[in-house]
Structures are given as structure tokens and as C-alpha cells.
């Protein structure tokens, strides 16, 4: 029983990290209808930039600020060079463009900052912590806390500020928003920048866990089932989806894994997503698609 609870809690905590990555997706998808496969690469790039800056002897805070700036510049470039020329193209086209984008970013990241594994120390000690009989990772707790904080900030940003209002307007009805004189390109720039920053946070948390290097960008593959389960257009969905995936994955590895020889985590989340798809083809919180003829 303890083992079960422990697995569950551990899974949920890990899930918050998945949510964080997924939120990056949702933001971009809501605002520009782009399924941004490059999210993982952005995450890698952010983390690498941060670590490199730290290695250059910058203070934590300064490095953080500089990285954020880099991500913003990146967002501007992407909007100008990739999104704007592809406006009004099919979503699949845009998705493929982001595939290309992820290549560019990964290539740049490794070219500029090297391929060796970097240790990333956030000063969070990663020791087991006991809540009664149940062992929880202190790191996971803090990571979950940070994720929660990030989400809260985002919520504020999008509910209380004018940008947020504009963004939601765009998400609801792009044409109407345009007629209201909302600058779509500006919205995209902002959203990609924010997504980049979210990527940075996620990148740092993941990086601290596994060291910062190439396979950090593979985290993106974890986020897809989260999106399917939560729906592409709902931040709430991304959070819930992340928790579901995290928990289910860990429970499955613990209970189903031994029966089939383990190592099922890579696909189990997707398997789960498929089941959800059959029940709700547009995710738990996604908007229903209505066929117009």
C-alpha cells in the first residue's frame, strides 16, 4: 500500500514537470494554431544557454535574466522568419516547419555550446524525504512547487493583463480579434517568448535532474500524450493531463512493467492517450471540432 502511494505521489510530482512542458505547447497552439514540435529543442537551448552562462561565471540571477532575453530574441526571430511567411498555411505545414525549427535549434545549441553533459546545480538537495512511511523526493516537491508557481504567474498574465485579453480574443476568434485591431504578429511574438521562458523553467528543472545535454529535447515526446489527454487548447487540461500521465506511467512501470519485462514507459503514456482519444476525440478539456460544410 505504501509502495502504491509512494509510486502515485512520485508519479504526480513527476507529472507536474510534464505539465510544464505541455503548457508551452498549449500557449502557442491557442494563439497561433501551431503545434510546436520545437518546444523540446527550445527547452534544451534555454537550459544550455543558462548553463553556459553560469560556466562563464555569471551569477545565477544574471544568467537567468540573460537567458530570458535570449529566448525573447529567439521568439522574435522565429515569428519573423518562420511564422509570418507561413501565415494561413495548413496546420500540418506549420507543424512540419517546427520540425525543421527543432533541427535548427538543436544544431545551433550543440554547435555553439558543445555536446558534453553539463551538471546543473540549482542548489536544491535531492534527498529522500519521509512523510510518514511514504518516501517523497525533496527535489520533486520543490520542482512541483516551481511548476505551480509558473502556472499561477501565467494565469495572472493571461487573465489580468491586456495582453492576456488580446490573446484570448485571438484564441477565440482570430478574425474578430483582427477586426478589433489586435496585432496578431505581436501576439505571436509574445506567446513564443512566454513559451520560451516556460521552456527555460522546465529545462532547468529537467536539467538539474539529468544533466543538461542533447536528450533533454526528447522531453517533448513526453508532452504529446499529455496534450492528447488534456486537449490542445486548455492550460488546465495540460496540468491535469500531466498529472495523469505522470502517475499512470509510474504505476504502470511498477505494476505492469514486471509482467512484460519493464521499459514500458516510452509508449505507455501514448497507449493511455489512445484510450482517452477513443472516449473523447478532442481531449478532456479541448474544444469540440464541429464539421462545417
Amino acid at each position, binding site marked *: 500500500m505504501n509502495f502504491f502511494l509512494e509510486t502515485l505521489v512520485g508519479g504526480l510530482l513527476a507529472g507536474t514537470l510534464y505539465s510544464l512542458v505541455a503548457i508551452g505547447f498549449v500557449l502557442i497552439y491557442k494563439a497561433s494554431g501551431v503545434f510546436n514540435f520545437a518546444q523540446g529543442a527550445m527547452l534544451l537551448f534555454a537550459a544550455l544557454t543558462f548553463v553556459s552562462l553560469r560556466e562563464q561565471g555569471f551569477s545565477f540571477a544574471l544568467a537567468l535574466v540573460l537567458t530570458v532575453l535570449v529566448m525573447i530574441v529567439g521568439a522574435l526571430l522565429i515569428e519573423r522568419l518562420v511564422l509570418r511567411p507561413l501565415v494561413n498555411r495548413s*496546420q500540418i505545414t506549420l507543424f512540419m*516547419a517546427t520540425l525543421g525549427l527543432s533541427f535548427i535549434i538543436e544544431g545551433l545549441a*550543440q554547435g555553439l555550446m558543445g555536446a558534453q553533459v553539463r551538471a546543473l546545480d540549482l542548489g536544491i538537495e535531492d534527498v529522500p524525504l519521509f512523510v510518514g512511511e511514504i518516501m517523497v523526493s525533496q527535489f520533486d516537491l520543490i520542482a512541483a512547487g516551481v511548476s505551480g508557481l509558473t502556472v499561477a504567474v501565467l494565469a495572472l498574465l493571461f487573465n489580468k493583463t491586456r495582453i492576456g485579453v488580446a490573446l484570448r480574443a485571438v484564441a477565440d476568434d482570430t478574425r474578430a480579434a483582427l477586426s478589433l485591431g489586435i496585432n496578431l504578429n505581436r501576439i505571436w511574438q509574445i506567446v513564443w517568448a512566454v513559451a520560451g521562458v516556460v521552456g527555460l523553467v522546465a529545462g532547468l528543472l529537467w536539467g538539474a535532474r539529468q544533466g543538461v545535454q542533447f536528450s533533454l529535447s526528447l522531453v517533448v515526446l513526453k508532452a504529446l500524450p499529455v496534450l492528447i489527454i488534456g486537449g*490542445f487548447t486548455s492550460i488546465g487540461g495540460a496540468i491535469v493531463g500531466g498529472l495523469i500521465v505522470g502517475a499512470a506511467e509510474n504505476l504502470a512501470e511498477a505494476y505492469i512493467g514486471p509482467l512484460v519485462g519493464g521499459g514500458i514507459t516510452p509508449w505507455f503514456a501514448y497507449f493511455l*492517450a489512445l484510450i482517452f482519444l477513443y472516449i473523447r476525440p478532442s481531449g478532456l478539456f479541448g474544444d469540440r471540432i464541429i464539421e462545417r460544410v
Partner: protein
Amino acid sequence: MTATVPRLTASFDDAPLTLVRRRWRPGLLLLLLVAFVGLPWLGNDYWLNAILIPFLVLSLAGLGLNLLTGYTGQTSVGAAGFMAVGAFATYGLLLRVPGLPLPLALLGGGVIAGVVGLLFGIPSSRIKGFYLMVTTLASQFFLEWVFAKFPWFYNYASSGTISAPRLELFGHNLATPVGRYLLTLSCVVLLTWVAANLVRSQVGRNWMAIRDMDTAAAVIGIAVERDKRMAFAVSSFYLGIAGALWAFAYLGTASAGSFDINRSFQILFIIIIGGMGSIVGSFIGAAFISLVPILLSHAGQWLFNGNVDAGQLQNLQKVLFGALIIGFLIKEPEGLARLLGDLRERIRVWPLRF
């Protein structure tokens, strides 16, 4: 025109048999001659093993994915998974069915892959767009896992890899570079011909109709769901055979890892760059994606006679590829095939400019 339905169909059977009489263009014949006789004759091991065979196999895979994504409009990022099915199935057949001739084993491998593809295609009736794409990702990871996990598939080899069985046809040994090349080439030519038939047939038109607007397709009497599934099956059949050739004609060995997600992306890029919904595009794309890296690394060796960091070259190449993909999507959504076509037109009218 006032014929009613039954009479209409009846009249089809006695219609003259002259529509799709294919005109064998001398150019095509020449090309085949070069491919079947010329290249084996002058090509050395490097050409055959390192360039021609992988190029042909990738073309075939691209063709397979193009039928599904380019013609039917169902984006799949799980292509490599079905290649794996084909490879392991063919291996299993050769291993467990004694005396089974190679062509039948390949065919069998393809058919099994097709059936698996059919299964994973079932969701396509309910799920569309990205959601469908993610289901193909799921199939990718699942299949990869299956072939890594269950020893039966790789005959309990401790390494989990399958190695090419004796490649022979009617007693002829095909294990030589030339033999493997010819085997691959024959498969590719044959399947290309079939694909050409398909896309010109009613089935092909139905696929394209579904791609362009599936609700309308249903309204005018196209069995959308059936034809989508059909597309999945055919595509997987092609991919399966490509996978078997990849494993046995090219690598000579394979494990689940040989067919990972990156292979799927590679094949997707082949059709993006080459041209969605274009048979020729699959070949051009494959040529591009398999030759450019090699050219680049050679260029690196020449320019800096080996003093260049191979790693940086690789990164540069990655960036280049990404840029190219985006570039194509922006400038030429129909890929290199279209680009070359236009170029040809321009060359044709060129003298007139003066």
C-alpha cells in the same frame, strides 16, 4: 446518359481495353538500362553499399509514406515502426519457414506490415489531424518496444539484433553488393510501377479526394473510412518491404533501434523535401536526404583536409536541413519535384528570351 445504374455497370465490362496503355518512353527505358546494367557494372562497393542501396530503400519508404501522407493526407510520424514490422516479419518467415524463397518472404513481410498498418489505421475513422498524428507516434513507440522486448522476434539472440539470413534466389547468391543492389532495385522498380497504377486509378483519386476534403468525399459516394484504412495498409506494406530491405539488403543486420523515431522523421522529411503527393518526389527527396550529408562531410574533408571538427560539420548540416525544410514549406510547398519541373519549363523557353 439516361442509363440507369445496373445497365451502367454492366456496360463497363465490354468497353474496349485501350485506356491505360502505357507508352514506354525511351528515356525511361534508358534509365532502367543504366540502373540494371550500367551502375552494377561501373559502381564500386562504396557506390553500391553506401549510396545506391540506401538511396533506393529510402525512396521506397518515402513512396510508402507518400501514399498515406502525400496522397491521402493522413500525416504519419510512425513510418519506421512499420519498417520494423516488415524487417522482423521477413526475418521470422525466412527463419521459421524452411525453403521459403526470398521474394515470397519479402512479400509476406510486407503483407504482415500491411495488416499491422491496417490495425493502427482504424483510429483514422474517428481521429483527425494532430490527434491522428499522435496515434501514429504511439504505434512507433509501441512497435519499437515490442521488437526490443520479446526475444521470439529476434530468435533469442542475446544482442537483440537480427542479422541477414542467406540472401539467395533460385540458388543465385545475392549477398554480394551487386546482388543486394539488384534485389533492392527490382523491388523498388516493381513497387513504383504499382504505385503509379494506383495513384492513376479510382482508388488513387479517392485518396486525393479524401486529402482535399473528406466530408465532400463522403457526400459524393467515396467510402472515406474504408479508403483511409486501405491507404494505411498499402503504405505500411511499402514501408514493411522497405524495412526488410533496409535490414537485409543494406545494413545486413537490424535491431529495434534501427527503426527509431528519427528514421520516421527522416522519411517524413524525404516527402516534404521531395514533394508531397508526387511519386518522383519520393525519389528526389531520398536522393537529397541521403546524398547531401555525404557530400557535406566529403566537402568538409576536402576544404579543410580533415582539420575540421566533424562534429561541427554535423551540427552545421543539421541546421542546414532544418532551414531547408522550412524554406521548402515557405517557398515550394510541393517540394523539389515541382522545383525541377518548373526549372525544366524555364530551360525549355530559355532560348526564346533572346
